[in-house]
């Protein structure tokens, strides 16, 4: 079976590595790490992920901006984006994550199981592309 491709964008190297290790050891996913918002777009174009995990607060480029540029790219706008961020309280995020403008917010720190749940849920949803 083809592995699902996940692009994880976070300025924390440790975090992206952890995510890749955890996801890849399931054998289901193939994960690409990006630690700079600027290169996220380029990598997305080449890697063509099925889903992008996006940190919000990044020094060079805001997660929101990254998401906006992704939206503007016709080739990428259909890819679902999950925001994974430290600035949101878990409660606000809710057990189902908070949906803001259609995007899913996950609060750090997050457990692997919850991550996988969120990924599968997003992949299963039809992408409205809004």
């Amino acid at each position, binding site marked *: 079976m083809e592995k699902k491709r996940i692009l994880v964008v976070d300025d*924390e190297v*440790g*975090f992206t590595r*952890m*995510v890749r*290790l*955890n996801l890849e*050891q399931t054998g289901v996913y193939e994960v690409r790490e990006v630690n700079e918002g600027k290169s996220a777009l380029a990598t997305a174009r080449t890697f063509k992920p099925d889903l992008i995990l996006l940190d919000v*607060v990044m020094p060079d480029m805001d997660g929101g901006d990254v998401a906006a540029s992704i939206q503007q790219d016709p080739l990428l706008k259909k890819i679902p984006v999950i925001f*994974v961020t*430290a*600035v949101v*309280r*878990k*409660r606000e995020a809710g057990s189902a994550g908070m949906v803001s403008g259609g995007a899913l917010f996950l*609060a*750090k*720190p*997050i*457990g*692997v*199981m919850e991550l996988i749940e969120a990924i599968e849920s997003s992949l299963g949803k039809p992408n409205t592309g809004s």
Partner: protein
Amino acid sequence: MSEGQIKVLHIEDDRVSADVVKGMLSATPGVPFDLECVDRLDKGLERLARGGVDVVLLDLGLPDSRGLDTFNRVQAAASQTAIIVFTSTDDEELAIRAVHEGAQDYLSKGLIQGPAGRLLLTRAIRYAVERRHAQETLAEERRLLRNLIDSFPDHIYVKDAESRFLMVNKVTARFFGKENPEEVVGKSDFDFFPHGLAMQFRTEEQAVFRSAESLVNREAAVTDSKGRARWVLTTKVQLRDNHGRVVALLGVNRDITEIKEAEMERTRLAGNLRLMLESTAVGFFGMDRAGRCTFVNKAGARMLGYEPMELEGKNIHQTIHHKRSDNTPYPTEECPMTKAIRTGEGADVDTEVLWRRDGTAFPAEYTAFPVKESGEIQGAVVTFLDTTQRRAAEMALDSERNLLRALIDNLPDYILVKDTQGRYLVDNIAHRQFVGAKTAEEVVGKTPEDFFPPAEAARIRAEDIEVMRTGEPMLNSEEAMTSPGGRRLWVWKTKVPLREPSGAITGIVAITSDVTEHKEAEQRLATQHAVTRVLAEAPSLDEATPKILQALCEGLGWDFGELWIPDWHQNVLHCMKTWHAPGLDLHEFETSIAETFLSPGVGVPGRVWSSAKPAWIPDVTHDSNFPGARFAVKAGLRCALGFPVVLGQLVLGVIAFCSREIREPDEHLLQMFTAIGSQIGQFIERKQAEERLKRTLADLTHAHEELKAAQSQLVEVEKMETVGRLAAGVAHEVKNPLAIIRMGVDFAMSQLKGQDGDLKQVLEDVNGAIQRATNIVNGLLDLSAAQELVLKPSDPHALLEQCLSMLRHATSTSHVQVVREFAEKLPPLKLDPQKMEQVFLNIMLNAIHAMPDGGTLTLRTYARRLKPVDVNRDPGSRSGVRLRSGDMAVVVEVDDTGIGIPEDKLAKVFDPFFTTKPTGKGTGLGLTVSRRIVNMHGGTIHIQNRSEGGARATILLKA
């Protein structure tokens, strides 16, 4: 009996003899004999007793008598009558004896015969008469002599050759202490005087006897019978008989005791005088009639530069008095000393000089006493003194006196001296002017009663008496007094008793300074200060006014003060406040004033109001524009004055005064009043400004407080924002590593593949830790949650139910009963439901956690009005709490039946990170956040222990 007639009485019993005699006598020519004849002795005696008989012819042989006895009886009966005795020839002896006894003659009867006999008889009679006469005369003379020597005051005595007293006069006898001189006769001096003295006398007398020398006027000191010492002047002379033989010594002693004593006294006095003369500093000299010096005392001679002897004999005037003080010659005729000896006029001169030996002169005072003896001028005695020093002293005294006089006359103070009766003795010009006198004569001798009003004079007198009585001076006594002119003055009086050198008080010295101006200025200043102080301290005009009136009245001595305020609508002045001096009955006047409304220009206040200037009426009875004059006069008030209270041009009011004394306008006072009037005006303005200021201040304060509250809130907000940002930052920074750790742990656990229980446990513990850390970080974020409340009308009951449902698991697990005590109707509330839910959740969670073994959770809601105690209860609440006492609030109470909270921890429950839960359970941030949220709603939350056990959380929310 006719002159020349000889009265004869013949006592003869013999008829024949009687006839013979009768015949003879009647026949005798030339000498008329008046014969009477009796024949018996007793008849004869009887006849003699009738007197007038010159001769008695007595027959010794009478029948009723015998011999000499007959004669004695006749002689006794007629001592002044000559007796011729007739005898018979054989009785001659008897006749002779009769003659011895005092008969003049005897005749033998036988012889009386014939013409020869007749001759014999007549002759015998005549001779007898004459002899008798002569004897009488002699006896008379002797008696006279006796009387003389007896009445002579001197001692007269006659001594014999043996110095025995032959005769002494009465005075001598008395001297010896004998009444009768006969008692002394035969005695001698030795019987009466001390032996020595008597011996001395005897010796003297012997000398007198022997020599022909008489002892004349010798002084002797004797003692009389009474022991008194007497001085006598003795003269002793020989007494010779006709043959020149010294038969006796006649002595005369004159008692010269007094004279002697006087002489001794005189001598003594003279001696004293001499001594005095010599020891005195006064110069003495005597002048004779020619003006020559008869004597001069040492002092006098010395003063003149001479030896006494050099002056004696010299002409006084030429020697020491020849020139006047200006060196011009001084004629003798004009010299008073010379006058004394010329006219007997005494003189006392102190304006001339005397010239010394060396040609210098000195001023002298001399007195010339003429000396007279028996009316004749014998000379003069002159006493003199060198008056140089005295002159100098007098001049010094004079100049000092003049200086003093000038001094006291130039001083403005009233200076005077009075005697003990209060009469003026001395005063200065200033005093005279004060009492209205022009010369000293108008004052001296008078008393204060003559110048001052009775009450004032009485006071002066009382003061004088006190000072003279106690001897203590009255120094600088400040007093009010009325001048003779009736003016009111302030003076400083000093009175000092006047003493003689002996210390006795003879009067009083008084110095009075007029300090009226000074005092008045002082009073004005004090008054102004008082007013200023009142204005500074009084919070309002209302409170200031009585004090101002009082200060002005008391300070300046006015009796009544009034404040008038204009009523602009009615255009009248009305009296707002009055003040009067205590003790005065001014009730009627006060009442009349209270009812008075004055139009502009009417009365003193009206005048002041319309003119905006002070008005002064010295005597209201003379003023036509004084409506209250009647009442004023009745109350004894005479003088009225008013001044305006001004602010700029506007007259805000009038202050007026009345006084019982008439006072003349005083420029100084008017100035002061004007100043005070402005001062009060400014005060009013200031008070008004203060009011405005106060209101503004109140507004500002209010605004300030609101600002502060807002600022606090803002600060809070900013703080929270900072904290929020910080928290956000921290959260972010912490959460990322946490995320990695979590991921790592998950990965590690996935590698475990079921074995390694220890490792698994470790990893699980780590996971727990991660979770806790995450919760804390989340709690931090909660704490600094977005400050915006999203207020919506909410139903607290709904929120509470929602929380209950969320906690259903917890309540059932802990076996906690839930009791609802919800109000039926609550006022509408605007809340942020999400946040409030968080609060309720937190509270209820705490309550449940407090009852791990079960209990009852009670939820209660109701509405009530807030009391002050509710509002003040939250000490930790920051500004932003808007609950006020009286507000309507909704109360939510959550009670539990747990163990409660320890008292010492109650205050800290809301502190961040405070928790009573064991470590690992609870972040300690729940209540902090909850309170934050409640406060943001403008409510309060507090926790207390319940008396029944357990705790209660009370939330008050503004409805």
